[in-house]
C-alpha cells in the first residue's frame, strides 16, 4: 500500500536577523491510509512547523529550504499557491490547539461551514448547508440544525473543537493534521474527541498526523511514532515497539519522566538541563549536552540509520548497547 503522504529530508528554516533557525532539519516520515502517526516533541522541537510545512502555511521569514513532501505524485514543497489552495482544506486539512483561532468569532457557524464547502465543491447553497449539518452531527454535536445558527462564543471549548474538526472533515480529506487539538481540553472531553477522530480515521481511511507533547495520548492512538528533538526526528517506528523499548536516550528519558512510569512518591527520572536554543545549537548531536551516554563520537551529527526492528534512529549509543 502506498503512503498517503511521504515527507523526505524536509528542511524548513527561518531566516531571522539573529541567524538561521533550523526549525525542521532533515525530517522524513510517511503515513498510510487509515494510519495514525504520532509526532512527539517538546516545545520548540519543530513538530508544529513540520505540520505547517505540509499544509503550506509557513510564513516568512520561514521557508521550505529543502526536501520534498509527496502527495499523489505531487511535491507539495514546490506547488504553486493556487494549486496548494485547491488541496488545503479539501484533500489535506488541519486542526489546531486553539479552536478559537480557527473560527471567525463574528461569523455564524453555518456561514463558515458553507463557505468551506463552496470553496471546493460546485454545489447549491442548500446542499452545502445540508452537508454542514451532517458534518456537525457526525462529530457528535447534539441538535445540529440549531447549532449551525450559533456563533463560536456560544460553544464550549470541547464543542468548538468539534466544530473545527467537522469543518476539517467536510471534504473527507485524505490527510488530517492535528496539532495538539486536545491539550486545552478536559480529560472527559479529550476522550470524546479522541473517540470521534479515531472513528473517522477508521471509517473514512483518513491518514492522521497527531502532533503532541503528550506521550500518554499517543500510546493509545498511534500506529507509528516519530520523536522530534531540536528540529530532527531522533527515533521513529512502530508505536508499541518504541514505547516498550525506546532506543534513543532522549525517547528513553522522555518516557521515563512520565509520572505514571515511576513509583509513587519516589523521585522522577528526569532529563537534566533544558531544551536547546535552536539559534545556537552545538555541532553534532543536539541532545549530547543532556545525554549521559554522550562521548566524543557525538560531536559529529549521527545520521538517521535503520535499526533492527524497522525503526530509524539517530544515535551512536542507543540504549540496547552497553554505554
Amino acid at each position, binding site marked *: 500500500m502506498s503512503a498517503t503522504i511521504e515527507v523526505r529530508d524536509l528542511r524548513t528554516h527561518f531566516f531571522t536577523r539573529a541567524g538561521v533557525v533550523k526549525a525542521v532539519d532533515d525530517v522524513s516520515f510517511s503515513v498510510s491510509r487509515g494510519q495514525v502517526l504520532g509526532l512527539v516533541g517538546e516545545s520548540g522541537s519543530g513538530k508544529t512547523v513540520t505540520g505547517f510545512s505540509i499544509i503550506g502555511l509557513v510564513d516568512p521569514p520561514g521557508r521550505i529550504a529543502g526536501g520534498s513532501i509527496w502527495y499523489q505524485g505531487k511535491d507539495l514543497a514546490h506547488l504553486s499557491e493556487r494549486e496548494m489552495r485547491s488541496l488545503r482544506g479539501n484533500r489535506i486539512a488541519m486542526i489546531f490547539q486553539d479552536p478559537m483561532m480557527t473560527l471567525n468569532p463574528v461569523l455564524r457557524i453555518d456561514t463558515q461551514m458553507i463557505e468551506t464547502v463552496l470553496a471546493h465543491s460546485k454545489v447549491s447553497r442548500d446542499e452545502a448547508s445540508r452537508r454542514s449539518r451532517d458534518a456537525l452531527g457526525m462529530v457528535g454535536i447534539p441538535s445540529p440544525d440549531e447549532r449551525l445558527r450559533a456563533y463560536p462564543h456560544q460553544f464550549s471549548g470541547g464543542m468548538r473543537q468539534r466544530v473545527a474538526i467537522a469543518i476539517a472533515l467536510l471534504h473527507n480529506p485524505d490527510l488530517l493534521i492535528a496539532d495538539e487539538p486536545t491539550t486545552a481540553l478536559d480529560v472527559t472531553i479529550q476522550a470524546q474527541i479522541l473517540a470521534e477522530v479515531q472513528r473517522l480515521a477508521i471509517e473514512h481511511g483518513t491518514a492522521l498526523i497527531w502532533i503532541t507533547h503528550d506521550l500518554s495520548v499517543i500510546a493509545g492512538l498511534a500506529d507509528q511514532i516519530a520523536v522530534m528533538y531540536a528540529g530532527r526526528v531522533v527515533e521513529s517506528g512502530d508505536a508499541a515497539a518504541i514505547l516498550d523499548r525506546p532506543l534513543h536516550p532522549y525517547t528513553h528519558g522522555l518516557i521515563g519522566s512520565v509520572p*505514571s512510569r515511576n513509583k509513587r512518591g519516589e523521585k522522577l527520572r528526569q532529563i537534566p538541563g533544558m531544551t536547546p536554543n535552536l539559534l545556537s545549537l552545538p555541532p553534532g548531536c543536539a541532545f549530547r549536552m543532556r545525554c549521559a551516554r554522550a562521548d566524543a563520537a557525538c560531536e559529529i551529527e549521527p545520521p538517521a540509520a535503520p535499526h533492527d526492528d524497522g525503526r530509524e534512529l539517530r544515535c551512536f549509543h542507543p540504549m540496547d548497547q552497553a554505554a
Partner: protein
Amino acid sequence: MSEPIIELRGVSKRFGPSYDAAARLTRAIAGRLGAPPRNETVRAVDTVSLSIQRGEVVGLVGESGCGKSTIGRMVAGIMPPTEGQILFKGHDIATLSGRDGKSAKLKVQMIFQDPYASLNPRLRVADIVGEAPLTHGLVSRANFDSYLDAQLHRAGLDPSFKRRYPHQFSGGQRQRIGIARALAVQPEFLVCDEAVAALDVSIQAQILNLFMDLRRELDLTYLFISHDLGVVEHLSDRVLIMYLGRIVESARTEEIFNHANHPYTRALLAEVPRIDSRKHRFTAITGEIPSPLNPPAGCHFHPRCPHAMPRCAAEAPTMREIAPGHHSACHLNEVAA
C-alpha cells in the same frame, strides 16, 4: 490525630454581579411584573469542608470550572469565602488581625500555573524573590544578599542570575523563580495551582522532583491542585475529587486509584490516557460539563452518570465514610448498604 494545619468548614464562594441602584430597580420592577429574576450567580464552591494535616500532600483534582482554583485561592488568602470558615492552625484567618493575621498569611503561599503571567516582567529576580522577606522583616539588609542567594540556590537557580529579568529565563526556570519567591517568606503551607501544567514533560519532572525535595527539607504541607491525575497520583498522599463546586470523593491515593467509588471518579480514571496503554478504541462518557451558572439539581453528576436513579435528580448526596478514611458522596452507597 494532631490539629490540622488547614481546615475548611462549610466554605462556599459565590460570584455574582453587583447591582447598582438602576439595576436593582429594573430587577424589582421585573419581579413585580411577574418575570422571574435571572440567576446570575455562580456557585464556584459549594459548602466544602476539608482538613489537611501537617506534612500531608493533598491532591485536588477536577476539570475546568469545578472550583478547584477558587478553593486554592481562598486557602491562600487571596480571596475571602462567601460563607464558612477557613482555619489556619485552628484560628479563623478572617478574624485574625494585625501581626497574627500577617504572619498566618505569610505561612501560606501560592505557586501559580502560568510562569509567564505570575512574575512582574519589570522587576529583577532579586526584587521578585527578595521584596517580601525584606518588607516583612524576615531578613536584615546586612544579611540580604546571602539570604537571597540561599533562596535562589534552594530552588535550583544560579544566584548569579539575580540581576536578570523574567524574560531572560525559560518556562521551567521561571517556575523556579515563582517557587523561590513563595519559599522566601518561610511558609509552612504551599498551594500549587496547576504548577507544572504549562511545562514540557522533561522539565515537569524536574519541578516535581524539586517539590518533593523541598517537602522533605522544609517539612512543607502541600495542596496540590491539578487536572493531571498522573501527576497527582505520583505526588499526593491523599486525593480529593471535585465536580462542579463540590467534593465528591476523598481518600488516600492508593485507595482512590485502586477502589474508586464515585461514578465520576471512575469515569475520570477510565479516561486518563496512560502511557502503558497501546492502540485501542477510545470510548467516552457522554455529555458536557454543565455550566456552574445553572448546575443540575440533586447530584450535579446525574445527567452524565450511567447509574443515575430518580433520587439523584432530587436530592444532593452527602459525603459518607464508605471505608476507613474513604469518603464518597453518592446515593448508590446507601442502596448497597
